[in-house]
């Protein structure tokens, strides 16, 4: 099959060819970028929180007198632990996907000169790391004497657990155990490294890493009160949470249950990623509609050209061209147009991605998306042109002998 005559024919329809190629270019650019954004959302939704989500529930109460905090904690823990199926219940500042409790900037020296970034502090009573299911990768879990009473928000000399990611960020390549950092005029000393512990309200914008968290062991009371984590078998967690919420009314009739945050961690996660799911759905819809419109354009134009060239097709058939030759002619023509569009589209895709990166917090387009986008458009083009091309192939040679 010679490409020369096809190019010559396209040159006669230069404008329409360029327009369809432009459309394909734009579709290619949007396709690559939208897919990359969907991948970003899905990656965010899959983020590892580091806690046993399916086994945990959060119970939050408000409206109590701070002076009664110790008494309330004691009553709540006893009451919650008494619910059948509850494996453990602890006072905790928050849980991943729960309300944000403590976020502060830290430094790597006492004078505050070398900033370590803004990190999240989780605080919990004895047994909390075990109840949350934090996985230790180095050092040791806090001992009984590490759970000291609070002075304000923090115990005076906290010995903390740090995530592996944060440790690597603060002291790259070094052993974090025994290292110290400073924040809020307090010296924190690292005694253990955990695999993951996600910040409570992660946002992609900004510089804070998803895993930049620290667990501070503390004796419950004062600021550490009113929020509890309940652990149960994943099969029982829904029932346990229903019973726990009902039990709060009898355990502490004078407090108000915060329904928004008193949910299983699984539900909190689901709610947290609602907008990401919605956005991914919208992007998917846009991609589908875009490909549809592009395909419709190809079908429309190809049908027109087939109708326009009926006579020429008939002549070619009469001169000995087979049906397959005619079919291939339109397929190659389409391939050429789409290829032209894709070349433009790849440039456009990278350009759009670069400007989106500047305007919004969009990750860089992985380069392997481009050949895949090209492949999709080639396939789409071939599919769209198939019906008109088959119709062209069906033109009988006798057409050549008829006048218009």
């Amino acid at each position, binding site marked *: 099959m010679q490409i020369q005559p096809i190019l010559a024919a396209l040159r006669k*329809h230069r*404008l*329409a060819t360029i*327009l*369809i190629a*432009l*459309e394909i270019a*734009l*579709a290619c*650019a*949007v396709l690559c970028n*939208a897919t990359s*954004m969907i991948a970003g959302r899905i990656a965010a939704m899959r983020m590892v929180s580091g806690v046993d989500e399916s086994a945990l529930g959060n119970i939050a109460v*408000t*409206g109590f*007198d*701070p002076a009664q905090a110790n008494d309330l904690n004691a009553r709540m823990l006893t009451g919650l632990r008494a619910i059948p199926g509850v494996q453990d219940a602890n006072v905790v500042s928050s849980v991943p996907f729960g309300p944000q409790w403590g*976020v502060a*900037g830290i430094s790597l020296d006492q004078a505050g000169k070398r*900033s370590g970034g*803004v990190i999240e502090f989780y605080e919990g009573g004895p047994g909390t790391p075990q109840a949350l299911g934090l996985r230790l990768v180095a050092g040791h879990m806090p001992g009984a004497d590490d759970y000291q009473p609070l002075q*304000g928000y923090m115990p005076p000399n906290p010995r903390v657990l740090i995530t592996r990611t944060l440790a690597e960020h603060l002291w790259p390549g070094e052993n974090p155990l025994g290292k110290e950092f400073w924040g809020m*005029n307090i010296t924190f000393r690292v005694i253990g490294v955990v695999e993951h512990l996600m910040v409570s309200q992660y*946002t992609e*914008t*900004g*510089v*804070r890493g998803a895993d930049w968290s620290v667990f501070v062991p503390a004796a419950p009371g004062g600021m550490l009160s009113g929020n509890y984590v309940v652990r149960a078998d994943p099969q029982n967690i829904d029932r346990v949470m229903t019973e726990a919420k009902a039990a709060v009314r009898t355990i502490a009739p004078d407090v*108000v249950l915060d329904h928004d945050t008193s949910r299983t961690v699984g539900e909190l996660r689901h*709610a947290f990623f*609602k*907008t990401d799911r*919605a*956005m991914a759905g*919208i*992007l998917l819809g*846009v991609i589908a*509609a*875009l490909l*549809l*419109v*592009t395909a*419709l*354009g190809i*079908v*429309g*134009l190809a*049908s*027109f*050209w087939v*109708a*326009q060239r009926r006579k020429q097709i008939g002549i070619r058939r009469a001169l000995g061209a087979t049906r397959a030759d005619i079919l291939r002619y339109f397929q190659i023509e389409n391939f050429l147009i789409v290829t032209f569009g894709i070349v433009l589209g790849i440039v456009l895709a990278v350009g759009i991605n670069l400007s*989106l990166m500047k*305007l*919004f*917090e*969009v990750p860089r387009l992985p380069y392997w998306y481009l050949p895949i986008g090209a492949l999709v458009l080639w396939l789409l083009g071939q599919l769209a042109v198939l019906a008109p091309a088959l119709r062209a192939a069906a033109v009988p040679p006798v057409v050549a002998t008829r006048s*218009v």
Partner: protein
Amino acid sequence: MFSYYIELALRSLKRTPVLTALMVLAIGLGIGASMTMLTVLHVMTQDPLPGRSAHLYYPHLDPLPTNYKTDPLGTNPNQNLTWPDAMALLHAHRAVRQAAMAGGRVLLWPQRTDVQPFYVDGHYTTHAFFDMFGVPFVEGSGWTATDDQASARVVVLTQTLARKLFGAANAVGKTVRLGELDYRVVGVTKDWAPKPLFYADASAQFYSDVDQFFLPLSDVLNSKQLDGDLRVSGNISGWSDSNGDNLRDPSTTWIQFWVQLDTPTQVATYRQFLVDYSAEQKSLGRYQRPPTNAKLYSLMGWLQYENLVPDDVKLQMWLALGFLGVAMLNIVALLLAKFLRRSGEISVRRAMGARTRDIFVQFGIESALVGVAGGLLGLGISQIGLWSIRQRPDDYAHLASMDPSMLVGTVMLAIVASVLAGMLPAWRACRVPPALQLKAQ
């Protein structure tokens, strides 16, 4: 002639029903997607207080120490004012009206025994709030300057909350228990919630938060109930080493402040006053940064500064417009192919005396017809799009619906888009030379 062209166009469109349907569908989808997002953007950036917004301004002071590093993630602490600064501006009386305010959440104990105690959201503010923002009252009124000074235990409720507490009876004069103390109701406002809730703190849900009560700020601070059953629901940011719990602390920001300035001269004077005030504070050693950091934002300028439109929405709008672009390119190509295929017909018309302009108008009308049909389809699609947005969890979702101006805008956009798309093909068509085409056949 016009009706003849319409007839010609209709006949031509009917001759190729599939192609026509494809074009109408493409432009309908493009218009539908674009108008959905433009409507969302329109409601998100609308003027919250038409008529008044032009006279409302937000003073911005910068009491932060020079070495304070702003967390690029969080909101800047100097978006809000400290208590001493707010009181200084309030008592200076340099604006026509001025009010200090902060978001609040209180535990309310209803007198009716069948209703459980519950939390309500509202604002702690000063007396000029109601007149300055033009809050409409159903009964009673706001409190007075004297009430502010005396830290009177008074409260203004919204109609919804008043109904919930007292039924249909008059609420003014009755008492409500907030936390541990009783407050006398002095006024009931209509359910009033500007969208966006421009005077709220940056942490608020600007499109869905509704204030249900208003309490005097001075009383709230004096009653020692704060951090118990009454809370400040906005950002409280401190930068001194002292404990940040003290709201009167000169290095803790939590108050929003609005002023009413009616003339450009007043605005200029007030701006200067803010700079002078900052300079004075700097000479006293309280401020460290240059006094020219003090700014005065207009209401719309402040909303822009707060950057209320999420990146997701902007991104979706660009996507939708990109989609419309694809749809338009599509239509240009299809119309071009279609019009040029009728070169023979054009030639005949030209040979019979039709001017190029006539041909242009004829084909322009045909494209416009596609546009009208596409616009109507797009209107339907955008209604579906807006409905789906209303199902979304976002704070602005419930606002997503079209007002008449957007309805007209949709059809206009469709027609403009399709006429633009038809321009090039029509121009190419009218350049077909007369008779030449006839010869070829």
